[in-house]
């Protein structure tokens, strides 16, 4: 005979259950800032395509405003968090081995940081 089973509903605030889930949700939220800033970069590119004057106008009118600087700082914090958590997740996603032994996960994470610095320096050199 089959008895009645008790089903426990998932609470709406399940992501508050522990610190790991809270950090996960923060990472999910950071994706909106990554996507949002990508769109913003496209707008900047569009303005640059309209000529120097249009870009300067955009730069002076929008970019230098207090609200813009405030939003930039928030976006920066979220994008950095997104990048760091992605780097730290690399050893889980990539199975890199030397012979039978997987390489030290710290080495794989460090390689991402090194690449980050290298790419940033190259972009800075090109920009300046």
């Amino acid at each position: 005979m089959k008895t009645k089973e008790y089903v426990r509903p998932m609470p709406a605030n399940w992501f508050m259950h522990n610190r790991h889930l809270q950090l996960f949700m923060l990472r999910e939220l950071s994706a909106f800032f990554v996507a949002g800033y990508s769109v913003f970069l496209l707008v900047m590119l569009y303005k640059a395509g309209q000529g120097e004057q249009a870009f300067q106008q955009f730069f002076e009118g929008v970019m230098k405003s207090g609200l813009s600087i405030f939003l930039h700082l928030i976006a920066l914090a979220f994008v950095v968090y997104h990048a760091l958590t992605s780097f730290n997740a690399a050893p889980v996603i990539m199975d890199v081995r030397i012979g039978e032994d997987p390489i030290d996960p710290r080495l794989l994470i460090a390689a991402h940081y090194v690449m980050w610095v290298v790419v940033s320096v190259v972009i800075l050199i090109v920009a300046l």
Partner: protein
Amino acid sequence: MPEKSITLEVFRYLPEQSDEPKYQKYDVPYREDWVVLDALNYIKDHIDGSLSYRWSCRMGVCGSCGMMVNGEPRLTCAAFLRDFYPQPIRVEPLTNFPVIRDLIINLEDFLHKLKEVKAWLIPKQEKPVSEGEYLQSPKELATYKQFSMCINCMLCYAACPVYGLEPKFLGPAAIALGQRYNLDSRDGGKEERTDIIASSEGIWECTFIGECSRVCPKHVDPAAAIQRAKVQSTQEWWMSLLLPKGAK
């Protein structure tokens, strides 16, 4: 000197008595070397014989004593009272599963998923016993060994919010075990498993929360199995798109 004791708040669900569960408190003797399962056994033997729960090996191998201990999925045979003493310990059945009685969950869904994913060896080529073993090098063994350590305890399902929200999700252990055989050099069943593993209810449902790997008592790291399967599946999709038909 009076004997030290510790309180267990145990989830009770007796369908023949009530549609709603309740929590029942039991005071059990506190011993340094006791685990939560020892305390449950004490309750069963000395206080309340009606308490129902699953257990078997008492040494972290059988995977049957998984329960929520203070809200965390744990093997109760590996959760020491000393880590909680003198605070009370709340013991509940694994979340995300229907409860049959007290601490016993219905695990039909998981067993069905194990079957769906064909978590067994499908030899590339069947050969008679007289031809001997299917040989494998230590290097080939190393590629899947971690995922083969799964004891089907289902703690990862209890920890996974995706499974809680979307019960159709194949889930961490079933995918890790599917990958265990996909990565086995002796196995030839990858194509048979791909339909289910690479489906929207398989790896693509996973949002990489990572709770499955955090709670796994055997360090199987199902999150790794799933993310690597995603990479592999994406690579194969691109290859099938870019390479001419028939090419590998």
